[in-house]
C-alpha cells in the first residue's frame, strides 16, 4: 500500500519535472526564435542589402526560426537521401572534404545563441565561454532539430573549453574526438596529425558503410570534394578581395553573415549563392554603388568569433558609423580562406594536403607559439587599409585575451588603435558597449580626417 503510494508520488514528481523541463525548453526555444528573427529582420531592413543576400538570410531563417534544417541538408526525400548521414563538426579543424567524400554531409555546430547559452549554463563551470555554453545548451535541450539530426559529432581538441565540451557532449550524442596538436612547427606533431586524419577517415568510412562493410573513400570522390570546397574557397576569397575596395561595397555584417551561413548549407549550394553575390557586388563596384564614403573608418574585428545569431558587436559597430571590412575569426575570413594545394591525385598527396590545410595556416590561438597570427593581422591591416581594430573577447575565452598584449604591441608600431571589448551573448551590456564603440569610432573618424 505504502510502496505504491510512493511510486505514485515519484511518478507525479517525475511528470512534474518533465513538464517543467518541457516548459523551460519551450521558453528557450521561443527566445531563440525571437532573437534570431530580430537579427534577421535587422539585416533585411538594410536598404543597401544585395539581392543575393536573401538566399543566406533564408538559410538562417530555415535553421533558427522555422527549425527546418533537414530541408537544407537533406533536400530530396527519397530513400537514398534519407540514408545520408549528417556529421556535426566544431571548430574549423575538421576536414569536411573527408565527410563529403564519404557521401555524408557536414554541418558546423558552434553555437552563437544567448538562450542556448543560458540553457547550457548549469551544465558547465561558470567561467566557460558562451560558445561552449550555447553548444551544450543546444544539444542537451534539443532546442533545434539541427543538433538532433547529427548522427555523430566531431570535436577537435583545440582550446580547453572545447576539449571538455567534447566530453560533456558525449552524454547526449555520439562524439568523436579529434586530437589537434598545439605546436605545429614540429615534424612529429604534424605526422601525428596526419595519422589522426587517417584514423578519422577510417571512422567515417565505417560509419557511412552498411552494417559491417566499410564504405571506402574513393580517390575520385575525395578529389571531387576537395575541388568542391576549393570552389567555395575561391568564392570566399573573391568576397574577401571585394571588401578591400577603398569605399565599401558590402557592409561587414552582411559579408560575415554570408560566410557564417556556410556552416548550415551544403558547400555546393552555398558556392552557387556566393558566386551570385560576388557577381552582384562586382556589378555594384563598376556602377560605383558604394555603401559608404571613403572617409568612413574601416574596422577589423579580431579575436573571438561572432557567431549568428549573436550579431551584437558587428551590428553595433556599423550602427555607429564605421564599416567592418575584415575579420580574422574562424567564422569569418579565416573559415574559408586557406585552400588545399595538390599536384597529384594520389590519396597520399590528398591526405597530406588536407592535413596541412587544416592546421598549418590556421591561426587559432589554441596553437602556441602563434606568431603566424601577428603576421596575418599585419598583412590584413595593410591589405584592407584598416583604421582601427576591435578586439572581441568572449567572456572566458582566455587564449584570445592572452594574445591581446602582443597584438596591441605590434599594432602600436603600425599606429593602429585597438579597442578590447569583453562581452558574452547577453543583451544586457549593449548600451554600455554602444558608448564605448561610439567613442572609438568617433576617434577613428577624427584621426582619418587629419
Amino acid at each position, binding site marked *: 500500500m505504502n510502496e505504491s503510494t510512493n511510486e505514485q508520488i515519484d511518478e507525479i514528481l517525475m511528470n512534474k519535472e518533465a513538464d517543467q523541463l518541457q516548459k523551460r525548453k519551450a521558453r528557450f526555444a521561443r527566445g531563440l526564435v525571437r532573437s534570431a528573427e530580430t537579427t534577421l529582420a535587422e539585416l533585411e531592413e538594410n536598404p543597401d542589402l544585395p539581392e543575393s543576400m536573401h538566399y543566406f538570410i533564408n538559410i538562417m531563417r530555415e535553421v533558427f526560426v522555422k527549425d527546418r534544417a533537414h530541408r537544407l541538408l537533406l533536400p530530396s526525400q527519397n530513400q537514398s537521401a534519407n540514408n545520408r548521414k549528417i556529421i556535426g563538426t566544431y571548430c574549423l579543424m575538421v576536414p569536411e572534404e573527408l565527410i563529403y567524400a564519404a557521401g555524408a554531409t557536414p554541418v558546423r555546430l558552434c553555437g552563437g545563441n544567448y538562450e542556448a547559452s543560458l540553457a547550457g549554463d548549469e551544465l558547465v563551470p561558470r567561467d566557460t565561454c558562451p560558445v561552449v555554453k550555447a553548444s551544450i545548451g543546444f544539444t542537451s535541450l534539443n532546442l533545434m532539430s539541427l543538433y538532433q539530426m547529427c548522427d555523430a559529432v566531431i570535436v577537435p581538441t583545440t582550446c580547453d573549453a572545447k576539449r571538455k565540451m567534447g566530453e560533456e557532449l558525449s552524454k547526449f550524442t555520439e562524439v568523436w574526438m579529434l586530437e589537434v596538436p598545439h605546436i605545429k*612547427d614540429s*615534424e612529429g606533431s604534424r*605526422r601525428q596529425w596526419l595519422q589522426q586524419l587517417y584514423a578519422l577517415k577510417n571512422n567515417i568510412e565505417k560509419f557511412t558503410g552498411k552494417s559491417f562493410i566499410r564504405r571506402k573513400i574513393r*580517390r575520385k570522390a575525395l578529389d571531387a570534394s576537395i*575541388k568542391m570546397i*576549393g*570552389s567555395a574557397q*575561391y568564392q570566399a*576569397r573573391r568576397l574577401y578581395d571585394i571588401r578591400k575596395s577603398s569605399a565599401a561595397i558590402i557592409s561587414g555584417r552582411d559579408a560575415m553573415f554570408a560566410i557564417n551561413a556556410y556552416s548550415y548549407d551544403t558547400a555546393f549550394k552555398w558556392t552557387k549563392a556566393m558566386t551570385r553575390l560576388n557577381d552582384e557586388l562586382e556589378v555594384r563596384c563598376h556602377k560605383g554603388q558604394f555603401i559608404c564614403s571613403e572617409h568612413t573608418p574601416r574596422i577589423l574585428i579580431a579575436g573571438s568569433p561572432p557567431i549568428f545569431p549573436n550579431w551584437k558587436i558587428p551590428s553595433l559597430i556599423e550602427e555607429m558609423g564605421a564599416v567592418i571590412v575584415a575579420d580574422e575569426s574562424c567564422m569569418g575570413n579565416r573559415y574559408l*580562406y*586557406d*585552400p*588545399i*594545394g*595538390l*599536384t*597529384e*591525385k*594520389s*590519396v*597520399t*598527396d590528398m591526405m*597530406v*594536403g588536407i592535413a*596541412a*590545410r587544416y592546421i*598549418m*595556416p590556421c591561426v587559432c590561438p589554441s596553437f602556441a607559439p602563434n*606568431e*603566424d597570427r601577428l*603576421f*596575418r593581422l*599585419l*598583412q590584413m591591416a*595593410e591589405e584592407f587599409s584598416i583604421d582601427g581594430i576591435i578586439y572581441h573577447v568572449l567572456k572566458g575565452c582566455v587564449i584570445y585575451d592572452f594574445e591581446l598584449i602582443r597584438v596591441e604591441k605590434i599594432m602600436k608600431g603600425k599606429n593602429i588603435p585597438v579597442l578590447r571589448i569583453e562581452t558574452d551573448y547577453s543583451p544586457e551590456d549593449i548600451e554600455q558597449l554602444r558608448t564605448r564603440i561610439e567613442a572609438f569610432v568617433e576617434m577613428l573618424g577624427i584621426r582619418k580626417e587629419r
Partner: protein
Amino acid sequence: MTVTNLRWMALIISFLVLILGGLIGLDLGGFLPVYACPYVGQTRGGVCFLFRLQFILGVGSWEAFKALGEHLLYFSILVVLIGRAWCGWICPFGFLQDVLDLIRRKLHIGYIRFPERLRANLRCIKWIFFFIALLIPLWVAYPLLAPSVAGDLRQPFCQLCPGKYILPLIIGNPDSVAVDFKSATTITMTILGLTFSTIAIIGALLKRRFWCPYCPMGLLLSWYKKISFIKLKKDCQKCTMCEVCYNVCPVEIQQVFKERENEDVTFTDCTLCLRCVEYCPEDGALRATFLGKTIYKSTSKGFFSRQHIIPGVTDDQVIR
C-alpha cells in the same frame, strides 16, 4: 603555358641536346654543370664538369691544372648565370627522375617522404661523393701507394654515378650495365655503381627527385647560391605558412615556408623548379628574381586555376 610545361619543354630539349646532340655535331664543352654523361658515347652533346674535373686532376701536370682553371671559370659563369636551375630545368638525369615520377603519379601511387632526421643524416653522402671525386684522382695522378689499384680508379665518382649506367642504356647501349671484370677494383666500383643505379631508379619511382640531394654536382652548384643571378624570394608577411610549397617541393625543403625573417629563400637543395611559386596561393608571397628583377611570382588566381577550380590562367600574364 604553365611553368611546369615550360620546364618539361626545357628538360626534353636539353635531354635531346645533351644526349643526342653529337649526332648533329654539337659539342657544348666539358664544363657543363649537369650530368651530360661522356659515357653515352659519340652522340653526347657535351661533357659533365665532374668528369672533366676528375680527368684533369688524374693527369696531374701543370698544363692540366691550368686547363682546370679555365674550365672552372666557364663552369662558374654558367652557374652564376642561372644557379641550380641547371638541376631543375636542364639536367638529363633530373629529367629521367621526373619521367619516373610522372609514371608514379599516373599510377596514383603516393610518394615517400623521409623524416627530417634521416634526411639530415643522409646529407653527408654528397660530401663523400665530392671528396671521392676530388681526392682520389690526385692519388691516381701521384700513385705513391698501391699504384695498381689507383690505375684502375680513373674517374672514381663516374664509376659510382648512376648516370654512367642509366643514361647510355636509354639510348640503347646495354654494355654500360655490365660489371667490369678487369680487376678487383673495377669489379667493386662497377658493382657499387650498379647498386646505386638500381637504388636511384627505384627511389625515383617512390620519391620525387630521389637522387638530387646526394648529387655532388648539386653540392658544387649550391655554393654559388649567394651570387647567382636567379633567386627565390619570399615576402614573409604575406606568407600564411600553409605548407603548400613544402608539399609540392620535389626536394622537400621545409625552410621556405618556415622562413620568417629573410627575403632570400634559395636554399642549398633548391633546384629552382619554381613549383612552390606556381602553387603558392598568396599573391606575391613567393617570387623568382633574375638580377633583382621579378621574373615570376605567385598569384591566387594562378593557384586556383592549377587546382582546376577556375578555368586556366596562363603564366604568360605573370612572366614578364
